[in-house]
């Protein structure tokens, strides 16, 4: 017990003296705050991108593509095939007995981005009427749905934010055809919010297409994707691959998500190394300035352990303050901000939000503490091993 009291006494005494060394303490705090702010903000980008793609799709839905195609743009499904596929018994039906399947086409349209004004690829999706029953997470936040056979579109709210001229009532010129924006929809922050939707039949004729690219369907029995897959595989008329929707979208986030993560960790590692050297420097000079004090304490009978703990406690406290400040900075700067980038898999824009999660902030604080630990330990050991006589001889 006696030793614990010693530790607490010295640690408390030391922490009270920290404000007397504002310059050095500030360097440690700012250095570590910088590392954590950069780490958290870059990783929150990857997190947001992954989240957007991972939250697209539900396990009770399947997407059908031509075998061998990984993305809708490269896929094609002929009109007659779409008809037969929709009537497969493994696909659910609505109360009127209509199959819950939507054959869709996706073309890429050029629209100017709000931030840069440069034309960017926006996915323009033609959907069949069943699409709204299949994707029941979709809500109109403004306006109304497009009418059948009319050149009207509804726009995802992220697309409306990221691109110019997508307000309700605006007219957009796509491929020689004029479309009116009649509504804005939300769908839980998934990729469809970066898209423009129209009636499939109208789009097929306007863009002179012969058929569709993909089909999204609700499964009759939630977990029974295999039954649908087996039936389609066994049918020689088709060469179609069946994927569970969440898997299809999660795969699209792999490359870019990994790239952003690698960038974030690389940058943070080098910054952390720099910050660690800075922390070492400051803790060494803190120990040097307390030399006489430490010598005196040792001379009157205090052990080495309380001295080590007091130095470590100072380093860790400064690191904690820095880590928290860095996390807060990243949060203020990034939370709720959104970006749009090119999804390599679909060759079109996908918009997403920075996502700062408690787990990410925790990771940032852990990094901060690790830097504090590495920066505090060698000076603490030096402080403990100072010969008393030498320490008392003030420099």
């Amino acid at each position, binding site marked *: 017990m006696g030793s614990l009291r010693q530790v607490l006494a010295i640690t408390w005494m030391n922490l009270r003296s920290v404000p007397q060394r504002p*310059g*050095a303490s*500030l*360097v440690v705090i*700012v*250095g570590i705050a*910088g*590392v954590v*702010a*950069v780490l958290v903000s*870059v990783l929150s980008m990857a997190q947001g991108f992954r989240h957007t793609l991972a939250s697209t799709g539900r396990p009770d839905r399947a997407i059908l593509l031509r*075998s*061998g*195609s*990984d*993305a809708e*743009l*490269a896929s094609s499904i002929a009109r007659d095939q779409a008809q037969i596929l929709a009537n497969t018994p493994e696909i659910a039906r609505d109360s009127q007995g209509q199959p819950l399947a939507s054959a869709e086409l996706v*073309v*890429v*349209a*050029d629209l100017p*981005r709000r931030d*840069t004004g*440069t*034309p*960017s*690829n926006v996915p323009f999706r033609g959907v069949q009427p069943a699409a709204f029953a299949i994707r029941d997470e979709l809500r109109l936040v403004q306006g109304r749905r497009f009418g059948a056979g009319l050149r009207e579109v509804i726009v995802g709210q992220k697309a409306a934010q990221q691109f110019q001229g997508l307000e309700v009532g605006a007219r957009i010129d*796509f*491929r*020689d055809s004029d479309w009116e924006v009649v509504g804005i929809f939300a769908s839980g922050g998934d990729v469809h919010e970066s898209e423009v939707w129209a009636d499939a039949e109208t789009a097929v004729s306007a863009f*002179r297409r012969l058929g569709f690219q993909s089909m999204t369907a609700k499964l009759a029995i939630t977990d029974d994707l295999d039954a649908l897959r087996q039936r389609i595989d066994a049918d020689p008329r088709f*060469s179609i691959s069946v994927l569970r929707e969440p898997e299809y979208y999660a795969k699209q986030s792999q490359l870019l998500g990994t790239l952003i993560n690698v*960038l974030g960790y*690389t*940058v943070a590692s*080098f*910054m952390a*190394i*720099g*910050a660690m*050297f*800075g922390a*070492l*420097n*400051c803790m*060494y*000079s803190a120990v040097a300035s307390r030399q006489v004090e430490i010598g005196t304490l040792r001379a009157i009978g205090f052990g080495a352990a309380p001295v080590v703990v007091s130095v470590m406690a100072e380093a860790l406290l400064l690191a904690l303050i820095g880590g928290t400040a860095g996390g807060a900075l990243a949060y203020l700067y990034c939370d709720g901000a959104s*970006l*749009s*980038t*090119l999804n*390599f*898999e679909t*060759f079109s*824009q996908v918009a997403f939000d920075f996502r700062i999660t408690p787990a990410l902030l925790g990771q940032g604080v852990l990094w901060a503490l690790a830097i504090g630990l590495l920066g505090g330990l060698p000076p603490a050991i030096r402080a403990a091993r100072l010969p008393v006589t030498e320490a008392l001889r003030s420099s």
Partner: protein
Amino acid sequence: MKFLPLLWSGLFRKKTRTLLTLLSVVAAFILFGLLQAVRVAFDAGADAADAKRLLTTARYSIIDPLPLAHLGKIERVPGVVAVAYANWFGAKYQDQSNAFPVFAVDPARYLDMYPEFRIDPAQRAAFEGTRTGAVAGVRLVRRFGWKLGQKLPIRSEIHAQRNGGLDWEFELTGVLDAEDPAQQGNTDVVLINNAYFDEARRTGKGSTGWYIVRIADSGRAREVGAAIDRLFANSPDETKTQPEKEFALGFAKQIGDIGALVTRILAAVFFTLLLLTGNAMAQSVRERIPEFAILKTLGFSDGKVAGLVLSEALLLLLLGGGLGMLLATLMLRPLNAATGGKFPPLFVSPATWGLAAAILLSLALAIGLPPAWRVRRLRIVDALRGG
């Protein structure tokens, strides 16, 4: 120069402190070198752009096909010297989607259009003379260990053969390289013969992806581009013609502003470094006030003593920054070998070195000037009393 030993002993008076400060400078400049390399690679497309090349794509989207029949019409536009075309194959190799781009081209037209690509004349002739021939960029050949004459089994995500299968096979007849290391990333492609591809494919015969147009006078790029687009206005296949650089910049902008991201990160890094090094420097000068007073007593002028302090800051940053940039250069070599062909090559460009030098100088001034000013105004009597 004769003051170098004095500077050195001043710097390394406290070995640990100086070494630690030096290492944080090294870490910051390694990061600077690496991030700038990423930025340079990202802009490589626009930097390698030839002012005398235009790109003609489908008006509404680059992924829409254009008829091959446009070729002859574009060639007859006044100011056009040569035309080549390419078609996106949508390759899948060893189950990796987009492991590398494959273009179906007219070999002679395409290779003439890009004089910056180097290919052995015999290999070029073999490519032109082999129907199923293909040439591949040197980094891809190294990455996959391909040998000349071997068969390349490549699957297409888009184009089926007449029998409906998506599996294609080509014969490697040559290797592409680039004169300039900065452009080696642009050779990370496989080129195949469009004549064979167009004949063997099931749908979309007689179409291609985009045209590359060489013009006589780069000053007339807009005019010629507009003339090309006018040819096809109101036809089912309208075009959009842009200078190559503009196209590359537009594409880079689609990905987002990488430059701004890198700038923000580096600003955070250098701000932290400034604080850290500045603090160490100020501390070191504070401890040596009496020494500077003695130097002044010995007859060093105010300016000289201030110059000594400033030079110390400069020496410290030059050592750390130079070492950091060198390490970044060395680190990129194995990194490029590991990602060959997956990502463009990363390297520290001369411009990056220049920028590093400018940042070093301004940091040295920011760190060294306040203590230098303090030492300059030092009054000998007071300073000696302080010691």
